[in-house]
């Protein structure tokens, strides 16, 4: 629907705010904006506040220059082709708002973008990944990062398109809570505190936690699985070392992935199933639930997908476990490996532990944490060795369906594609519904297609009754 351009006005950002100025425009004429996109930073004299557009359309013109003080209510920009506020779309991790300006990077450590690695296949069978763009940040975020001495390039962005948000900066800045003694011992024993589970007050890491972690690190990691079973684990150790060893890390990681995948394809007779699931119930439920929550507490659809996969694995336990010595060994809990692509290439699949029995908020937090730590190379050893089934969610990259390669010695890999609006018939009527393609790659030695089918049916059922998740 088109009509008169909509006006983006100086918002009132506080009871006592009479005027403000645009500290920075984040859009230019011609840019596409959607309702909810942050398009400007407003200086209220008290604070810099990011403000969002209430309209979807194309920026027609900017009416007020940055720095100019205007009263509340003054039109600041015109947005053409603005549809009346429509059904807000469920936020999905998609591309950032189209912007032509080169994003600023706070820590300009490297004058040149780092050499792009060869596009790396994700797990098994993933199509080549596009290299993630450098982080896009708002002035506030840059300011915060500068204040805290953070290199934004090292901060994992959870905003649209990997945009680094204020919350990301704050999270990155929050220190590991550890006792002074624990810190000293960690230094002596070369233990990464970020990978240590604290048992002290408020989760503080104590000396014993570090000693135990060091002892664990000294044990063979493959206790639960054959040597090649956890390809990513050793590489993560190196990843933690940081940039100087980046190249080595990538090489090692590549080699590990290569070994694991080759072994998988050599040894595991895969079978593949797929099913398309109507997501309208799930997304509707999610929208309701997120409506009044601050951004930091909102759930992403990915969490529903992970939870559904985990619950299904619990109900169909034949897919949850390992094939070891010509026999299936069932997993004690559903530890869901999550394939996470790394900035600059490569991927790891650390586990979210005991997913089937965790509530969604907990899972959301755990997922955010896991992704952030994975990309920072800060994994816990248990996470690297204890996955009982793996999920890959290439839908984030816009892929419709994923036919994955199983991580040996696991026996199944679940794939989720992008949630797409598709024509969909319900009760003989055609409508447009958001759907997702769920795939299963399973080890034919452990199960047959019937079992796999039951798994996908269960996922479908669960996603159609999201309140039960």
């Amino acid at each position, binding site marked *: 629907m088109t009509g008169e351009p909509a006006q983006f006005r100086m918002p009132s950002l506080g009871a006592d705010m009479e005027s403000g100025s645009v500290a920075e425009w984040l859009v230019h004429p011609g840019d596409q904006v959607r309702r909810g996109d942050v398009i400007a930073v407003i200086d209220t004299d008290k604070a810099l506040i990011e403000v969002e557009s209430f309209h979807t359309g194309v920026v027609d013109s900017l009416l007020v220059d940055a720095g100019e003080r205007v009263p509340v209510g003054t039109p600041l920009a015109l947005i053409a082709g603005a549809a009346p506020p429509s059904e807000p779309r469920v936020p999905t991790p998609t591309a950032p708002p189209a912007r032509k300006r080169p994003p600023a990077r706070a820590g300009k450590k490297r004058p040149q973008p780092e050499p792009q690695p060869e596009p790396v296949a994700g797990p098994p069978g993933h199509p080549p990944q596009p290299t993630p763009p450098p982080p896009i940040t708002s002035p506030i975020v840059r300011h915060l990062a500068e204040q805290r001495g953070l290199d934004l390039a090292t901060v994992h962005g959870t905003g649209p398109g990997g945009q680094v948000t204020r919350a990301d900066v704050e999270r990155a800045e929050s220190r590991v809570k550890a*006792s*002074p*003694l*624990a*810190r*000293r011992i960690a230094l002596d024993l070369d233990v990464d505190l970020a990978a240590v589970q604290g048992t*002290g*007050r408020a989760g*503080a890491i*104590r*000396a*014993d936690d570090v000693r135990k972690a060091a002892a664990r690190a000294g044990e063979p990691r493959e206790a639960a699985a054959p040597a090649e079973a956890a390809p990513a684990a050793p590489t993560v150790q190196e990843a933690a070392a940081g940039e100087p060893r980046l190249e080595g890390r990538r090489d090692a990681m590549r080699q590990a992935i290569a070994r694991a995948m080759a072994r998988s394809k050599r040894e595991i007779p895969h079978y593949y199933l797929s099913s398309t699931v109507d997501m309208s119930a799930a997304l509707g439920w999610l929208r309701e639930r997120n409506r009044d929550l601050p951004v930091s507490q909102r759930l992403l659809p990915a969490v529903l997908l992970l939870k559904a996969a985990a619950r299904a694995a619990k109900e169909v336990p034949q897919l949850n476990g390992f094939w070891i010595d010509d026999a299936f060994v069932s997993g004690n809990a559903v530890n869901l490996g999550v394939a996470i692509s790394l900035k600059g290439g490569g991927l790891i699949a650390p586990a979210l532990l005991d997913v089937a029995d965790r509530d969604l908020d907990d899972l959301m937090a755990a997922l955010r944490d896991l992704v952030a730590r994975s990309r920072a190379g800060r994994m816990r050893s248990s996470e690297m060795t204890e996955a009982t089934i793996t999920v890959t969610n290439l839908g984030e990259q816009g892929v419709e369906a994923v036919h994955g390669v199983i991580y040996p010695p696991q026996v199944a890999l679940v794939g989720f594609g992008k949630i797409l609006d598709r024509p969909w018939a319900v009760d003989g009527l055609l409508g447009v519904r958001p759907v997702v393609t769920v795939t299963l790659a399973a080890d034919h030695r452990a199960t047959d297609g019937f079992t796999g089918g039951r798994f996908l049916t269960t996922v479908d059922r669960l996603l159609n009754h999201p309140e039960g998740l």
Partner: protein
Amino acid sequence: MTEGTTTYREAMREAIREAMRRDERVFLMGEDVGAYGGCFAVSLGLLEEFGPERVRDTPLSEAAFVGAGIGAALGGMRPIVEVMTVNFSLLALDQILNNAATLLHMSGGQLNVPLVIRMTTGAGRQLAAQHSHSLEGWYAHIPGLKILAPATLEDARGMLWPALEDPDPVLIFEHGSLYNLSGVPRPGPVDISHAALRRSGKHVTLIGYGGTAGKTLSAADALAAEGIEADVIDLRILRPLDDATVMESVSRTHHVVIVDEGWRSGGLSAEISARIAEQAFYQLDAPIARVCTTEIPIPYARHLEEAAIPQVPAIVTAAREAVAS
């Protein structure tokens, strides 16, 4: 009664008697130290033995008789000045701080003040706010003074003589709840320079002194029953603090609870805590814990008074939390 059994009060009296026999420059001066036998009966019988010149009752003039003690020390004597309680000592605070603690420095090293001031401190006897405070931490703030807190029979008996030998002013704080403490003291001299490790354990360091030293030991017993082994330090000397003993212990246990009958804010416990953070930070495996007196003037009613000052269960709880967190 066992042979050699004595009380803290008697041990203190014996120490005074011995010092007066040993050195004619030593004399005792204070309110009611003579005919009355001392407010807490420490000097009972000394008047008869040494006479009114050397066991000298004073008017209720804390500034004058404490200051006179300082002057007498300058004049070559070794006075023992008794002040009834630390609360009353505030009437002589000017003399203690501006003269006793300061003269040596202000005179460029010419005038040292070999004076001993004894006073009662602490709560626990339902004497209410003006007789019950623990202000030794204030005195421990002052350069030029030495502050002793005998908590055992041995220290009650043994600290006075080295204090009299000290060329500078020494304040001895006798916790009022200790006078009836009884037992058989180990014979032999004691030093006035080191804290004492009263019990050894590997899990947590409990630091107390004076009136809280015994409570920390009781807490250590209770903790042992739970499998928590405590190092118990009796500070003994509140100025200069024996940092080495504290740091050595904290370096072994990595957990510490400081027990102080003084108030928490700006107090001795705060000072010890800061020193541990400064000197043994990387030994700490848990936040430093403190058990101090509630920040109120000490009330009269027994249950209120007991609730206000550090007690064994609170020490046990603090230690347990320190070890667990």
